[in-house]
């Protein structure tokens, strides 16, 4: 059920800038792994390469030992690696229910509808099923994107800043859902997030990137005390002090 993700020597440059410059890391099956780093560290580019939206120029991406770095996004999604986007990709002119049902194939329509109703109820959107998704608030769109991704039956889910633009009240709920995905559904999670409190609280492991490379990889406690991490985040201030 849970999937393992291995990334080795990933390179992706834009013009002369190597946004990802040899990133290497593993995501353990059934874990919540946080991917953090200062702006421009290459986190989003890693996400885009792993999910097939960008072609890596070098390096391997393995999903349960199978190479996926040359597959198109829809094949990767069907292989069990599903991503969300930083800004919700709500399909505004479709109903909330139709949004959730997009990943469904015809053969599984009936059971998918049952599952969709469950998930909508879980995140409190069950009253909005027939509404057009464009009418939802920013926070509701985040939740919609999350459950829609779950309908694609991921074994590993990549969340790009799930907390961005979510109100404090909803954050607690979202954290609860994310922990439940790991504990109850056995889904591996890789999460890019700027909210460090959230990352440290939720993650089993934290990967820190800077300048396109992984500079630290360990438990939240390890990473918090890592000199290189402090340098990356606070470099300018420490140098000035």
């Amino acid at each position, binding site marked *: 059920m849970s999937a393992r993700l291995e990334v080795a020597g990933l390179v992706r440059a834009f013009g002369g800038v190597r946004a990802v410059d040899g990133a290497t890391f593993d995501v353990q099956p059934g874990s919540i792994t946080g991917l953090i780093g200062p702006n421009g560290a290459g986190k989003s580019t890693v996400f885009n390469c792993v999910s097939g*939206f960008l072609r890596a120029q070098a390096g391997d991406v393995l999903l349960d030992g199978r190479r996926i770095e040359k597959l198109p*996004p829809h094949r990767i*999604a069907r292989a069990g690696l*599903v991503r969300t986007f930083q800004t919700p990709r709500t*399909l505004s002119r479709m109903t909330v229910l139709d949004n959730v049902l*997009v990943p469904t194939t*015809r053969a599984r*329509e009936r059971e998918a509808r049952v599952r969709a109703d469950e998930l909508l109820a879980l995140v409190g959107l069950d009253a909005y099923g027939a509404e*057009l998704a464009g009418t939802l608030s920013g926070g509701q769109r985040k939740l919609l994107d999350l459950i829609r991704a779950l309908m694609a039956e991921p074994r590993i889910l990549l969340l790009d800043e799930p907390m961005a633009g979510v109100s404090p009240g909803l954050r607690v709920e979202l954290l609860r859902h994310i922990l439940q995905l790991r504990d109850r559904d056995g889904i591996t999670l890789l999460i890019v997030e700027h909210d460090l409190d959230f990352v440290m609280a939720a993650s089993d492991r934290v990967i820190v990137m800077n300048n396109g490379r992984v500079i630290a990889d360990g438990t939240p406690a390890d990473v918090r005390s890592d000199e290189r991490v402090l340098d990356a985040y606070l470099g300018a201030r420490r140098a000035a002090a």
Partner: protein
Amino acid sequence: MSALASGDFWAFVGVVAGIYTLLALGVQLQFGLTGLLNFGQVAFMAIGAYTMAILVVKEHLSTWLAAPLGVVVAGAAGLLLGLPSARLRADYFAIVTIAFSEIVRYVATNQDSLTGGSQGTIALGKVGVAAQYNGQWERFQARVQAWLHVGSKDVAMLVIVWSVAIVALTLVWLAVRTSWGRALRSIREDEDAAASLGKNVLAHKLQVLVIGSALAGLAGLFYAWQFSFFSPDDFQPLLTFFAWMIVILGGLGRVWAVPVGAAVFGFLFAGTRFLDFSPLSELDSAQRAYLRLIVIGLVIIGLVVFRPQGLLGRRDEMVLE
């Protein structure tokens, strides 16, 4: 004004509306549901019509074999166009389609040995012999006419065209109610989101291109049979934009809005022919023909201003932006 009361005249208007329904149904599937801007729809109509006529006249094929081949070749042309271009951004794809449609028309105009050139299908056969591709069709139409006990060919044609159109509409309507239709609409809304959920965006685009082109090919067959003769000039880009007007009039994203749009468009287009009362009778008939286009243009502008969702569309789902 006597023509206004003539059943034959309105049957003719209805036949043309049925042909436009088939043509515009492709645009609805491609743009209204999938978001693909195809401005070259008329090219596939031309390909369907020419394929059938050429196979009948030059290869002496039965109409009943040549006609389905016309539809197949039109669909295949849609695939051929889509393979290199469907990955393009929407606006670039639109440019490719309109260029493709003009290329088809120019080839038909200049490849005399294949298409009869600018003289049209009459020059398909041997020099000095007026070629006919519709002998078998005429006999079939006469049988339908006798069977229906109707007095005019056009009424028989009306029944045939609309029977085919209703079957096509029903099939498309049933298809877009499934998960396939949901996938199309997800692509219209956001290709990346669709791909991230496991939908093969390119494959779906190619599917609607092939189906829409085949429908245009079918429209081309009926066009060819209805008019007994055609030339490259019949496939001007204007026809593509008529199909677009019909889809906009009826309402984007709704399958059954297409026949409604086609009927209203056909009525307006034919009805405005009779604008020869004072002071419009000061204009000659050619000027009045252009006046029709102005009237239809004004109707479209009024519609976009006051009812941008079209006659049957949902305002919050699909409007022209």
